[in-house]
């Protein structure tokens, strides 16, 4: 399983970009938590990143084929853990998402289960040995993914549950699906969305309503969206400077070191800082996609593209939320938001991509 890996094969460009983004994240966490009870978050985050680097190295050296061979036990373990979360998880802000671990760490299983889903989709689609996805296989795959999604949505954590969809989406897109199936899915969505909306939790409905019209309830759910937009706009071109953003420092911005970290970043670093960060994210994505293109096999390509799609979705939803173009869903910004689970799952996924990369000349 372990084989010699040349250090030069590792994607150092990606590594550099990741470290810069993480550095911006740590700086912003430091600034956003100054003089608060979370003031120790920035060095905790450094610890998470350090541990993440180890995880990334592990995921790189382990052959992804070996992981895919064990994917069904991994999948079952993930689903079981999600059930455990629902049973014994720690309840925070009315939602049960975390399993308490020693050393005060709370593990968000739904973040780590993404790895299993990516690998599962890759293996499933590879095993089709076809350039076209049949309906039966599509339904089978959808069922496999909908089960953990349903468990996560039950926590309730609709935002994280939805992040599983791009993995499925990019998978079936690449595997090739007939137009009539896309059409069918579109029609089904048209029916399901209103029904689904009706079955949402009140706070979830409120979030959607406030996304559509944030000024309607400025003290309630729309508050976060309004404050975020104010923070971003107040940043202007050059930003207010580290620890100088009033929206961030005076806590008008909600959770400025986790979900709304990019809003705090935009306030303190301005449009210039935002462009820098977005360019870094974009280059990172393209780096991942390029690794997918040069993958030695379909499985590797599916893995890379699954990771890419997932990160793109995270960026779209989180950054879109910050500027008021997406509803408040409470999903983190990869590599910048404070939190071990998110950092670790991201580093693991990037490790998978590197695992594909260093084996690109194997065949």
């Amino acid at each position, binding site marked *: 399983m372990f084989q010699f890996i040349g250090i030069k094969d590792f994607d150092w460009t990606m590594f550099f970009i990741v470290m810069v983004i993480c550095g911006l994240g740590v700086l912003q966490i430091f600034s956003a938590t100054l003089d608060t009870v979370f003031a120790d978050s920035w060095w905790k985050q450094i610890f998470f990143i350090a541990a993440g680097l180890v995880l990334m190295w592990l995921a790189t050296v382990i052959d992804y084929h070996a992981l895919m061979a064990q994917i069904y036990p991994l999948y079952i373990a993930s689903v079981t853990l999600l059930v455990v979360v629902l049973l014994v998880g720690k309840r925070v802000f009315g939602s049960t998402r975390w399993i308490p671990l020693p050393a005060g760490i709370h593990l968000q299983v739904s973040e780590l289960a993404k790895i299993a889903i990516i690998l599962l989709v890759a293996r499933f689609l590879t095993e089709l040995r076809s*350039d076209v996805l049949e309906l039966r296989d599509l339904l089978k795959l959808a069922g496999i993914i909908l089960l953990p999604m349903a468990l996560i949505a039950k926590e309730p954590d609709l935002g994280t549950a939805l992040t599983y969809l791009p993995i499925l989406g990019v998978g079936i897109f690449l595997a090739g699906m007939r137009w009539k199936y896309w059409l069918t899915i579109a029609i089904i969505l048209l029916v399901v969305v209103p029904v689904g909306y009706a079955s949402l939790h009140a706070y979830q409905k409120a979030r959607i309503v406030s996304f559509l019209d944030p000024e309607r309830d400025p003290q309630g759910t729309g508050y976060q969206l309004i404050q975020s937009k104010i923070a971003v706009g107040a940043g202007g071109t050059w930003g207010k400077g580290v620890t100088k953003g009033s929206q961030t420092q005076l806590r008008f911005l909600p959770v400025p070191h986790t979900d709304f970290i990019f809003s705090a970043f935009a306030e303190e670093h301005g449009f210039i800082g935002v462009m820098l960060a977005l360019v870094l994210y*974009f280059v990172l994505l393209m780096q991942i996609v390029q690794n997918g293109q040069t993958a030695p096999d379909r499985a590797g390509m599916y893995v890379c593209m699954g990771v890419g799609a997932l990160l793109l979705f995270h960026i779209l939803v989180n950054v879109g939320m910050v500027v008021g173009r997406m509803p408040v869903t409470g999903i983190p910004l990869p590599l910048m938001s404070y939190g071990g689970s998110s950092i670790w799952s991201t580093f693991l996924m990037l490790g998978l991509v590197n695992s594909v990369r260093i084996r690109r000349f194997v065949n």
Partner: protein
Amino acid sequence: MRFSSVEHRPEPTQPQKIQLRDDASFASNKIAAFQYTAVAIFLFLITGFWELQIKSPEIYNERAERNRIKSLPVVAPRGKILDRDGRVIVDNHSSWSLILSRENLHTEHLREIADGLHLDYDDLMQKVARYRKRPKYEPIIIKEELTPADLAFVESHRDPETFPEMETILSQRRLYPQNGVLAHVIGYTGEISESELDEPDFAKYNQGQIIGKTGIEKEYNDILMGVDGERQSVVDNRGREREVLGIKEAKPGKNLQLTIDLDLQAVAELALQGHKGAVVALNPQNGEVLAMASQPTFDPNKFAVRIKGSDWKEITSDPGNPLLNRAIQAQWAPGSTFKPIVGLAGLESGSIDEDTVFHCAGGASFYGHFYKCLEVHGAVTLHKGIVASCDAYFYGVGNKTGIDNIAFYAHQVGYGAKSGIDLPNEAAGVVPSPEWQMRNYRQKWYLGQTISVSIGQGATTVTPLQMARAIGGIAMGGVWHTPHLLSSATGKEKPHEWALNPDNVKRIVYGMYGVVNEGGTGVRARIPNIDVCGKTGTAQVASAEYEKSHRDLKDNSWFVGYAPCYNPEIVVSVLWENSGVQGAMDAPTARDVMKAYFDKKVRIAEAAAEAERQKHNPASAIVSALSPAHD
């Protein structure tokens, strides 16, 4: 078996790829599509930042500043109100007020806040609703005069998790004299009302400001009010102050010195206590109001903050009508106190002289009707007519002088018009005349009415203030100053003058001297060594028959007196409503006020003489300095 699915889909264009190649090349077009999607998404996000940060950052900057910076009002203390000797009548004292910050106000908290502070929930809701259209950063003052219990409630509940909208500020509260002394003159303050805000005069004020509602507080509100300051500070999302940006100090209102003499005022208030009536003391030489009392009175301290509904009900439903300032608002027939004016009209118009005689046979007949007098006075001349207050004599004078002359001189002395005192809502009274009757009732004047007016009955009504001014002005020889309460206004206004024949004035004054000093009806007003003049009066409040059937409707009694007889320094009018007894209580009340005035004058003169002596004799100064202080 899975391969079967591709067998029917041969790829003729690429015959070398019979088998599916297990590499990524098959999806390169789709990967490219993914890349374009990523580009589109990033552009979509960048336009979002462009719009907020480049196109209109000012809007958001301003909103961030509004979040960050909060202004709290620093309430300016109102000016104090002082008496003529500089003694404090109305003072302020500091107290805590509770304000609700509307930026983090949660209406669902209001019930608990109302309960905690013992406020009426509905009132509070209405108040909050009234502010709905105002800018968010304007706070609402919901309770003043916080008790220690209130403060404890606020401090224990204002944390971010409970009711962060509660804030306290230090403000000034009005402290009025106890027992309603001078309550009608001073008036009271209150929060500006919705209806007042709509009036142009009040446009300069803001919602929630405390303004004068009645009396001096209203009349001189602009002087007393001062300008509120502001405290700007940086706050966090919980409203906790992080940094003070600046304080604009409040500009306190100016102090106001009144012409009122508290010593005289106290005498007047004491004399009236427990009755319905009014006392007005003026200096006829300059119009200064020395004392003005009205009973029953009210406690303005109840209004000082926000009057409770129950207190308001109690005050307004009181049949004694304690809010009425009888000194300027009670309009009653002047009765016999009108006789000097009728006499003056007769003398000045030349219809009578001091020797003109009218016969009193317990009354006299005019136009086929017998008008009664209280006694049989026989042949009566002017002096006796005034001293004995003979109705029959004045019937004759009035009949001969005519209503037009009477009305003319009544107007000259200031009846039938507001005196122009610096208090709101003064009443004008009525001087009946043929024109007045035609204008108001579209009726012709009957000569019989002149007979009634001659003794101050009929439609004639005056206020106690008008009466003091009228008689004082006659004694001054025809100079009627505008009564005023503001000390600094003395000498500023031109008095109304109508040159009276000094001989005629003397004749009237001599009559009024007789009333007090020659066994007339006002004998109780005598003060030894001081020449007091005066005139009593009793006025029916309804027809005699009606009064008989309603025992509670007793006559009002009047007394107006002044001293000394020539160049008077003080004129006092006293009204007792429903007293029923002529001069029994009025004259002594006026006497007490005048006596207090002259006693004080003597005291001051003695003190000045003493001070003068000490200046020239240092030894006695040391002795007096060592002796126990006396006031």
